[in-house]
């Protein structure tokens, strides 16, 4: 079962998807910081 699950996230071309997933997390953080900064400026 564990191997099946691993295979569902590893594409056939052998390229790991983790780089893209990590980039998504960083992008979300950047967007959150940007939104919070905008909120700070707007409310002050």
């Amino acid at each position, binding site marked *: 079962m564990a191997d099946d*699950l691993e295979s569902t996230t590893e594409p056939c071309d052998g390229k790991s998807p*983790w780089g893209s997933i990590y980039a998504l997390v960083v992008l979300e*953080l950047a967007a959150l910081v940007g939104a919070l900064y905008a909120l700070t400026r707007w*409310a002050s």
Partner: protein
Amino acid sequence: MTTIDWLVLATTLSFIVAYGIWKSRDVANMRDYLHGGQTLRWPTIGLSIMATQASAITFLSTPGQAYEDGMRFVQFYFGLPLAMIVISAFFLPIYYRLKVYTAYEYLEHRFDVRVRTVGALLFLVSRGLAAGITIYAPAIVLSTILGWPLNLTNLGIGVAVILYTVLGGTRAVSQTQRQQMIVMLTGMTVAGIVVVLNLPDDVSVASALKLAGALDRMSAVSFEVDPNTRYTFWSGITGGFFLALAYFGTDQSQVQRYLSGRSLTESRLGLLFNGMFKVPMQFGILLIGVLVFVFHLFVQPPIFFNTSALDRLAASEYAAELDDLQRRYDVAFAGQRAAAYAYAAASKSESGADAPTLAALRASAERTRALRTEAKELVRRGLAGAETKDADYVFIGFVLEFVPRGLVGLLVAVVLCAAMSSTASELSALGATTTVDLYQRARRKRATAAHDLRMSKLFTVLWGAAAVAFATYASLLDNLIQAVNILGSLFYGTVLGLFVTAFFLPRVTATPVLAGAAVAQTAVFALFLGSDLGFLWYNVVACGLVVGVAWSGQFFSEGRNDR
């Protein structure tokens, strides 16, 4: 609390505990007990990681902190998503490859048994003390506000957690945490809705946020460069990163959560789920605190939020002084309310509020703040040994006074769920580390699996009893959430330094890294006792010192050997 609140509270808690025990009824060996048979999927792992970190302190202290200090605390979490990535990419594959029960086992694989023991002991000291605070924090607030006996509340939380942690092991902990996290998120959403509905009709959410901003409660992000300012973008992204890396990567109470995943992928996804949702969740909790602050610009709050202390003061020789203070506070509050209405009305106009309106609002807020400070001083003089910080009572006070019947029970359940969820992870991890890293390692003869399982359960019970005992004798600290984070920061940097050296400096051996740990721990204690440096920086300093001293020690010893 009314009967319906008690019903909601009792039903919620007993269902969660019974569900956890039922879902983990087939614990047969150490693998089942400590790793939950490695069967968990990423949503359960993610919620379990979040529930472990979100203690009752999170729900009691964080809104109170926002009430007093605004949104800036959210920056503390900016480094967390980056730490999740580093743990997923570097720490997790190694833990999986070595099939470790605890993080500290890895230190013996990499260095020797001395380093493993130092890592385990640093964890046991810091987490053992924190477990006491985790139980004590909600107990003191709930007992003060609701009149529950303090020691009985400590004991009640402690016994319930010990029961399902010992019976069901880590799987029971994770399964209950999933339910507890759902209760917590639902409860806080309800609290947010209630506070918005309680704002005056002519004050919109946008006006409320403008009001909060005018009174310096909306500074969520600051790029100011000042190491003595506790929460800035820079301290969050660096100090917060190191603290999160240490806590999630090396603290067994978290490592045990994600090592119970059914695969590396599930564990990674669980960690990244936490990385993506933690900042929004903390923002939401802080926002509730800010909205409670705005609500109390229009509805007069008590001059001191610990109303039980106020009652005792009113019955003392200081009653006349308190009465006079209260009268002046009533007048000052009426002025502040008028100024707040004027500002809210002006901020709706196209040009926004003008400078005199803003100045009037700030001056009136300053007057009420000064009177609250006087009240704290009076509490200090009138009640020997009483805690003068009342931020932890802000949110629970709002809940009890303004939240509808039935929902109060749900929100008290949120606080107790949070207390139970983080305590369960802590006790489970303390038991595991004591068994695997100290007891098994020190014993010369091999024992049966059943014996190890029994000992693991026994150590969990003993740590639970120690935590309850510590909670019984603890006194309310400055601010509970900060107390826990400061306590963690005193030790985490050193532990992280051990792991960073292990992962990234392959030539360094055990003796230099132990020297580095000794130097780093001494330096952190010296900084804590003799400097104003923000505690988030302790993690950076200690980790840097361990790595620096270990590397230098190795370099010079190799140089000497070469000669």
